């Protein structure tokens, strides 16, 4: 990676995701930050490294019936069912505001077929403000959705290739943790041209209401997120970052700067804040502040010096 010498105030926090340079490694995770505007009075949006918006499909989706969420031990399950306004209305209604922030917008997309992924990508290509595409091949909520793609290296590679062929912005493939070998998946999408991988999406889980003798979620199963999954996410980021040479974006249970820095030590070039946005709507800004403090205290010449810096020469 090459960076022009840094001049602005404060430490050098810039990281690169393919050809996209971020002013800092803190992004917001898809589906946990709305379309950013929801947070405008609760934090300073302009300070974000990037905004990743709620997953967008070709056509509008109403999503699942309620209940869609339930709290679990140090986490939550969600089965939103990928409710969204569809790519056309997204471009019309949401992109103008996002384009007005001086922060890159990365659009998270999902489809039921390779052709759908390709078509959404084409419609996003050239839209002002769209700085990157994150391909959700791992969403566990919708039966006809990403599940098949995220569990099979060949299918994941095919989706990646279709998206890459249809746009000029960097393509991030978001990996599912619900697989036997996540490194294999990462290598497959890297081979198909992905500029970056982000992980983890949610773990598939379930909760039951004993009194009602029914699942807590109308969808029966849902995606587990939050601090509970952080150990699994860290392990997978560590594995994947040693398996591929494209930048890895760490996601899963990140609540604090310490959490974010641990992911970077494990090999992540950047991080996404998900469920923590619900607990603390200024979480992403707080994480950024903590990273700035850390870089200053540790006198790092840039945050990039930390990436993959985990020491493994263990002495008991």
């Amino acid at each position, binding site marked *: 990676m090459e960076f022009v010498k840094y001049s602005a105030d404060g430490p050098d926090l810039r990281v690169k995701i393919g050809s996209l340079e971020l002013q800092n490694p803190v992004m917001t995770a898809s*589906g946990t930050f*709305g379309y950013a505007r929801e*947070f405008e*009075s609760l934090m300073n949006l302009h300070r974000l490294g990037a905004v990743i918006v709620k997953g967008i499909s070709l056509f509008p989706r*109403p999503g699942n019936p309620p209940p*869609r*969420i339930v709290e679990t031990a140090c986490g939550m399950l969600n089965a*939103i069912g990928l409710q969204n306004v569809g790519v056309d209305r997204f471009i019309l209604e949401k992109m103008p505001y996002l384009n007005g922030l001086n922060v890159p917008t990365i659009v998270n997309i999902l489809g039921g077929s390779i052709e759908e992924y390709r078509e959404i990508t084409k419609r996003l290509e050239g839209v002002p403000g769209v700085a990157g595409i994150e391909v959700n091949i791992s969403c566990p909520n919708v039966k006809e959705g990403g599940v098949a793609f995220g569990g099979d290296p060949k299918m994941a590679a095919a989706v990646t290739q279709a998206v890459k062929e249809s746009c000029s912005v960097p393509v991030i493939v978001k990996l599912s943790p619900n697989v036997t070998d996540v490194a294999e998946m990462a290598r497959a999408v890297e081979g198909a041209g992905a500029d970056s991988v982000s992980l983890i999406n949610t773990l598939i889980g379930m909760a039951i209401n004993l009194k009602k003798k029914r699942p807590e979620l109308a969808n029966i199963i849902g995606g587990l997120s939050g*601090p509970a999954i952080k150990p699994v996410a860290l392990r997978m980021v560590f594995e994947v970052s040693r398996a591929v040479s494209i930048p890895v974006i760490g996601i899963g249970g990140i609540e604090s700067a310490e959490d974010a820095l641990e992911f970077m030590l494990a090999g992540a070039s950047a991080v996404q804040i998900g469920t923590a946005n619900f607990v603390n*709507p200024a979480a992403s800004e707080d994480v950024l502040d903590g990273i700035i403090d850390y870089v200053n205290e540790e006198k790092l010449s840039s945050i990039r010096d930390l990436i993959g810096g985990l020491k493994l020469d263990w002495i008991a």
Partner: protein
Amino acid sequence: MPQYQEKTIVTRVEQLSADNVRLTLKAPDIAGTCKPGQFVMIRTAAGKDPLLRRPFSIHQADAAGSIQIYFKIVGRGTEILARVREGEELSVFGPLGKGFRINENVPVCLIGGGLGIAPMLFLAKEISRRKRVNTDNDIIILGGRSKGDVEPLMADFKQINMQTQAATDDGSFGEHGFVTDVLRKVQLSSNTIVYACGPEPMMGAIAAYCNDHNLECQVSVESVMACGMGACLGCNRPVDDGKYVHVCLDGPVFDAKELKWNL
């Protein structure tokens, strides 16, 4: 719509009954902007479990920068909250959601059942402050399982210039029966706005009553919530045409006719 995340200080803890607690919080930004029917999200645990904030209606707000919440201990979050001490900090954000719409010129009927009484005090005060017309026809009906759910709040409601009636399921305070029994007995002029908050069956029954009698009815409903501010899409509720509204953004106050009632 301005929203604030504040580190509030707990200035008063009132145990109003065995299970019901009222907290006064120093939250100047929220107090200065909130409207009746809006709510706040409060972090209950210092640790990561329970993880999510809990939503509570704003029970009162004053010009001195305090807000109150009034809640029942029903689970782990409210249990922790009930143990808070005066002087301690609570992280609160809000005000959230769309509140009650007030019309200064018509009579009103406010109905609070159980913890649904919480938002009614703020609403009653605001209406009585803004009211341009005579309030002889205005009425407040408060209900609960038994005395402890209603009686401790009567003094606050009595300070408002509206007649207040009470009903309890067990007859230990006020009328023996439901708030809907009281509602059926009072005479409401056709331009009355009915405001209701309480258990679903109660609100459903009131919605049906108002529908039958062609009265405007605003209800404040609940839902599970992760974020309280439109980010998670977890708080959906079906509306009649097969679509969903989101309680935290589109509500919690809705025109009763908009919603689908499972009775």
